[in-house]
């Protein structure tokens, strides 16, 4: 029976390596037949912010990889609304990450779901395994 795996992302990208190395785990996780979701809350919401460009800090821009997650069958990216608001951000500041739904004639659908803190808490409670970074 498939387990529910959540990848919990609470830290901004580039200041620490956690965002990048979390994404590396997610890509590997896609090869296993499990239910995968990603949670972005607190500063973690910046991991999928639009327009990232770390060239001047000397780092690689790994944010385009989030756009490829749909091809790996990873289509559940939960973002907490309260975390966005606290930081002066809104859904428009996030990358428009989508996937093609093979059960719906490959219609393009959004992978990012902005949800409330209370909804996030419920989703967390449904998981079997949570990896924190």
């Amino acid at each position, binding site marked *: 029976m498939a*387990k529910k*795996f959540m990848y919990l992302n609470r830290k901004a990208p580039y200041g620490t*390596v*956690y965002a990048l*190395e979390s994404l*590396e*785990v997610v890509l*590997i*996780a896609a*090869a*296993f037949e*499990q239910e995968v979701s990603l949670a972005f809350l607190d500063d973690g919401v910046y991991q999928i912010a639009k327009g990232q460009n770390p060239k001047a800090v000397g780092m690689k821009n790994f944010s385009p990889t989030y756009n490829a997650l749909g091809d790996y069958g990873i289509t559940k990216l939960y973002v907490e609304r309260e975390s966005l608001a606290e930081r002066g951000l809104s859904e428009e500041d996030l990358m428009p990450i989508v996937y093609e739904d093979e059960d719906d004639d490959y219609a393009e659908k959004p992978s990012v779901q902005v949800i409330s803190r209370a909804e996030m808490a419920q989703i967390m409670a449904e998981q*079997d*395994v*949570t*990896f*924190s*970074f």
Partner: protein
Amino acid sequence: MKYTIMVNEGPYQHQSSDTALQFARAALEKGHEIFRVFFYHDGVNNGTRLAVPPKDDRMLQKEWSELAEKHGLDLVICIAAAQRRGLMDASEAKRQGLNADNIAAGFRISGLGQLIEGGIESDRTIVFGD
């Protein structure tokens, strides 16, 4: 209960390696099984054999090695994280053209799939980090 333990930080700088070690010992004493300990991020630095801490301090790297030997633990170091940070076993060092390796006894280097497998196969997965 069957456990997988993930360690995200190196020895000394943060307490996470100490806490993971104490947790592992307590779980084993209670008769639980540890399926795997997976070292990720700076956690890979727990696997060096080149550390020489002061005589009156603990040597975490060695304590992991000894616990592994005593209980047959599977201590896995993530290869991608290890390569970024300079933790090498003999075969990987050779493959990379490096003239030295630094891995300690009881640790092995492998891929991230070992972490996911740990999550699947274990009753509980516990993460220790910063």
